[in-house]
């Protein structure tokens, strides 16, 4: 393995030599491979909005000053199309412009495609993906924006068990990497809590879930977990489950998007008892961040609440660049990143984790929230502390 790392470094040294001089002393270019087309577009739009915001904020407030010069920060976004090639070619395009700092992409296939290219071209990246191999020791300059279900599923399930009684649960998720990786982790955690679990997978692109609903109903599950099913799919599943007479609590141990789920399902009444992972806890500080975005960017923040995490990620990246004192040395920026405490002025404090699950301590863990709807009424969010591995 070390042999291969060495090879990568050699090659990337050669490749970067051509560009070392091309980048001006203080201009940070951030590459954003974001999915902007197809069903996952809203995730990409949140990523793009957050990074552009963080860049503008840092420039206005002179947060990035290297050798006494306030740096300009530009963001270049390329549609990574939620596919491996899309992200790989986006990463190559960034490399061509001498961009060494990447924030994104969103999805597992994209991360899979981008990682080799980013490593070959010696880039530092903060990625999001729930895949079991999204980061690892073979990708030393790739960081992970936030924990997967291994980090936060347990507190949410506990919160659910406190409020509702259930001994069996069904997990439904798409049958691709984005679905199976999460569902299997969730299943393990349910089982640790003494809940027996059935897993149901569907083909991405399914529009009518009535057959799957029938299957779940006949398994007599008392609770349902939508895992990482896209919000639109999750909405139909909830609607059809309730129509079928399902009355138990519903978890969404997969990500934000509850508003969209409620819209598709037909309102909060239909969700009835619903718990979900909200990546950030909405408090006054967060609302201040929303307002700051509106003031700075002149429009409301992107609807998808992943916006907050990406803001965190982009700010961490800029901080790491500041400490490293270089805008184009991935190793130095990575090293600086590892020394940084996980902390954000709006989101709060957390830890670096990941050693146990990925074998590398490069995953950000920070406070999150448990969203609860009970009896069709939205309850205040429950603040959950950052999960630590210690």
């Amino acid at each position, binding site marked *: 393995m070390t042999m291969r790392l060495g090879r990568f470094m050699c090659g990337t040294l050669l490749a970067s030599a051509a560009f070392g001089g091309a980048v001006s002393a203080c201009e940070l270019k951030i590459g954003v491979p974001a999915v902007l087309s197809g069903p996952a577009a809203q995730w990409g739009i949140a990523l793009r909005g957050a990074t552009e915001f963080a860049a503008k904020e840092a420039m206005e407030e002179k947060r990035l000053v290297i050798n006494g010069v306030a740096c300009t920060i530009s963001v270049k976004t390329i549609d990574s199309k939620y596919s491996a090639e899309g992200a790989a070619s986006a990463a190559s395009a960034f490399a061509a412009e001498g961009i060494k700092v990447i924030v994104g992409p969103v999805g597992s296939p994209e991360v899979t495609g981008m990682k080799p290219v980013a490593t070959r071209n010696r880039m530092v990246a903060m990625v999001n993906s729930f895949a079991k191999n999204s980061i690892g020791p073979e990708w030393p300059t790739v960081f992970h924006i936030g924990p997967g279900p291994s980090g936060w599923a347990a507190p949410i399930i506990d919160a659910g068990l406190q409020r509702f009684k259930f001994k069996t649960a069904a997990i439904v998720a798409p049958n691709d990497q984005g679905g199976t990786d999460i569902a299997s982790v969730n299943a393990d955690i349910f089982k640790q809590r003494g809940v027996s679990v059935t897993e149901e997978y569907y*083909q991405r692109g399914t529009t009518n879930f009535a*057959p799957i609903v029938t299957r779940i109903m006949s398994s007599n599950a008392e609770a349902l977990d939508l895992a990482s099913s896209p919000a639109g799919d999750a909405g139909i599943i909830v609607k059809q489950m309730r129509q079928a007479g399902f009355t138990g609590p519903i978890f969404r141990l997969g990500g934000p998007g509850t508003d969209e789920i409620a819209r598709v399902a*037909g309102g909060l009444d239909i969700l009835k008892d619903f718990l979900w992972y909200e990546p950030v806890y909405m408090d006054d500080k967060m609302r201040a961040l929303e307002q700051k975005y509106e003031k700075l960017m002149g429009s409301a923040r992107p609807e998808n609440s992943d916006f907050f995490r990406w803001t965190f990620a982009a700010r961490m990246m800029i901080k790491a660049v500041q400490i490293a004192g270089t805008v184009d040395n991935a190793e130095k920026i990575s090293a600086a990143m590892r020394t940084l405490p996980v902390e954000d002025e709006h989101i709060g404090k957390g830890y670096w984790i990941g050693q146990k699950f990925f074998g590398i301590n490069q995953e950000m863990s920070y406070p999150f929230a448990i969203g609860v709807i009970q009896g069709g009424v939205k309850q205040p969010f429950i603040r959950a502390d950052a999960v630590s591995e210690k």
Partner: protein
Amino acid sequence: MDSFIATGLIGISLGSQYTLLALGFTLIFGILGVVNFAHGGFYVMGGYVAYYCNVILGLPYPVAVMLAMLSMAALGWLFESLILERVIEDHQATLMVTMGFYLVMATAILMIFGAESPQFPFPVTGVWRLGGIYFPYANMIVLGACLAAIVFVYWLVYRTNIGRGMRAMSEDLPVASALGMRTKALFPFAFALATGLAGGTGALVTPILALAPHVGDSVLAFSFLTVILGGLGSVTGATCAAFIVGLIEAYAAVYLGGSKGALTLFALVLIILVVRPQGLLGREVRRS
């Protein structure tokens, strides 16, 4: 037993929706010789037009469905007569043009309405139950509307002169033109009929499922499956195949598991093609 019956109901609902889509698809193929890659686009856009009329403008839902149907028929008419007509002789060019048009439509929807699903509820709620069998009233109404639309298409195709003309063309275009039919005059009409049906189906079905810019992709795949199974150009074949596809999808998904359902369906279609390349009710595969 209950779940067996419930699954049958799901299959029939699916079947009626697929029928409306497949009828349009198969008419377009039979009459114009065109595989319409944009079919799913008309379905989604119909859904969004109905959403706009119903939710944003506040028009009654049935009016919104009619408007969706008419506007998609109009768009289909324009597309056929302005663009498709120019390349109608070259089946590969028609493929490219409809494919391109689908991309344009999907992008237009994304730009106008955004990527997230809007709230587009069906005006009627409530569920009919009998023991373990249940059937939402909304689905019942949609099923009824779909069946009515199927009857309308049959009436049009089998009882009117224009329909007889279309059928003759769809069964044997060269013979029909040899008999002196003004084949081309029917092209935009047939295309508009098909896209109007797709738009209407979208307006009916998206509120009971979900409305999002990408839901047209799977419509295309299922229309393909249905017409392959039924025999391209055959109206009755498409209808039977749509119900078979719906039932198999439902039963396979329920008894074998979600993702196996699709695999079963695809495998079955492949087998049918091998055994009976012309489809269940298709005429013999034309020679040259």
